[in-house]
């Protein structure tokens, strides 16, 4: 079935992926540019201008403390995207290492690693995150480390499955016979063959980490005020939506578009192969 797509399907897929690329690229650019753009202060409060609608002075109005919503929304991506990027890269490295190692060694060690991975997968990640944030601390280092540990297992599992299939192929045998080292086999033979699945999985985990972190902030256990972060902003704005919906809608739109953008960017076919 795979590969036998009509031209129309292929065109549609290409359009979706380009739209995703534009959205994700735009988000990354905005998050970086937020520090350079001539925006108003993220934290400066103006008690004379609380919960105002859009105006020339505040393009997206002000929040309940009279802070500029546009500036906070553009800056609000930095903590979540930053934490999620670092955490997903760590998780990807850990997951790739564990997955290929398990596939290469095989035997009881392989089984043992995958059982541990299964146990970690069964843990409710938001609950673990809340416990860590409350009892150990909510410093970015702690949260990034926890997120990386919680989200490496699914990646390890996908990598283990995919590289297991590759390792039985003839070209691996050929590489072994010509005396290639384990590292050369993993980097030169396995990685190119599982790259598509691996990258797709990592991108999907990026969105889950982003959502977990902003949910944590939303629940008041992630980013501390007055830092601008989308989850925290949504939480703050909830009580005042009857007065002004903008402080709520702006971060909602940003978070939603980023998550949907990543989903559109990631190839649907590879996504289907994973599930």
């Amino acid at each position, binding site marked *: *079935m795979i590969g036998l797509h009509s031209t129309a399907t292929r065109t549609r897929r290409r359009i979706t992926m380009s739209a995703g690329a534009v959205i994700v690229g735009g988000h990354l650019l905005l998050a970086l540019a937020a520090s350079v753009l001539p925006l108003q202060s993220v934290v400066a409060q103006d008690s004379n201008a609380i919960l105002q609608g859009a105006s020339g002075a505040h393009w997206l109005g002000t929040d309940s403390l009279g802070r500029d919503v546009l500036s906070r929304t553009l800056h609000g991506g930095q903590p979540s995207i930053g934490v999620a990027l670092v955490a997903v890269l760590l998780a990807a490295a850990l997951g790739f290492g564990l997955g290929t190692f398990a596939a290469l060694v095989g035997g009881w060690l392989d089984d043992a690693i995958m059982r541990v991975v299964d146990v970690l997968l*069964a843990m*409710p990640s*938001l*609950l673990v995150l*809340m*416990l860590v944030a*409350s*009892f*150990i601390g909510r410093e970015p280092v702690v949260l990034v480390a926890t997120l990386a540990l919680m989200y490496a297992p699914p990646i390890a599992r996908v990598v283990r499955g995919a590289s297991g299939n590759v390792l039985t192929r003839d070209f691996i045998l050929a590489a072994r016979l010509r005396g290639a080292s384990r590292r050369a086999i993993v980097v030169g033979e396995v990685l190119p063959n599982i790259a598509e699945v691996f990258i797709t999985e990592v991108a999907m985990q990026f*969105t889950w980490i982003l*959502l977990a972190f*902003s*949910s944590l902030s*939303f*629940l*008041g*256990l992630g980013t501390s005020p007055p830092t601008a972060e989308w*989850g925290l902003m*949504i*939480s703050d704005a*909830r009580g005042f*939506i*009857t007065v002004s*919906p903008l402080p*709520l*809608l702006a971060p*909602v739109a940003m*978070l*939603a578009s980023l*998550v*949907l953008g990543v*989903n559109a960017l990631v190839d649907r076919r590879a996504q289907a192969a994973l*599930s």
Partner: protein
Amino acid sequence: MTAYLLRRLAISLGVLAVMSVLVFLGVEALPGDACTALLGRSATATKLAQCRAANGLNASVSHRLIDWASGLLRGDLGFSIKRDKSVVDIVMPRLRNSLALATVSSLMAFPLAIVVGVWSARRKRTRVARVVDTVSLVLMTLPEFVTASVLWLLFSVWLPLLPGVTMVSSNASLLDILPNIWLPAITLALVVFAHVMRSMRASFLVTEERPFVEAARARGIAERIVVRRHILPAALPSPINVIAVTAAWLLTGTFVVEVVFNFPGLGRIAVDAISDRDTALILALTLFGLVVFIASSFVSDAVTRALDPRVRAQVAS
């Protein structure tokens, strides 16, 4: 089948016993205890010592583990020093509210998800099916507080049809809580619907490709009967597994939605308990989550087996 169920039940209880000890030790291993959490910044060495002595925290871990476990068997979940209430009194009304919330969202989501899943699988190349597919993907990937905020804005603020934030206490009668259930229930139902619908659809499409379906069609059996008698029984186990997992999530994973709507259920009290480090309460809630998780996998296994025509044939003969 009965022998299988009994064996499976015994294994589940064993897993539960082992896991609850691990959970107890895990909570024990967290830095700080109930007294440091209660006293907070005002904790001095003498005050801490008094509080610990008064609440029996000086006993050894094994001693307290036995105390806790024997209390559990008597239906005593412990005492929350922080809230100065027995854990059962805190948890019970909220458990009732959470059960009501989970029931309402289940009724909204599960039957519809199965029907729509089959429907969209049978019309997989039409535009409507593609739209349903995309919308469900969007529902699945958006965080709940985003869906919840948008629904709230739409149906409570702009169109004042439903109450947004719950203002009733956790002990209020179900009739008073019911109006407040709709928005959180719809939010949860949307997420759950998307997961089950997509699983039903995918499973139907895979089953449809299998030889026995082709054989049934080749024999000239009416399509309606092929779908009902041949494809569905073989395709249902995987969405049923998803239903079991999501039903467990409806009871234990609804932290965010409950906080958004201030709904007085287990999810919100869990967030509160974790935020103020109420270890007795955390312990009870984690244990509850464990019970739900193990029970849901037990039920899902049993239903899957009961649906399997090969197993049923054995029972009949």
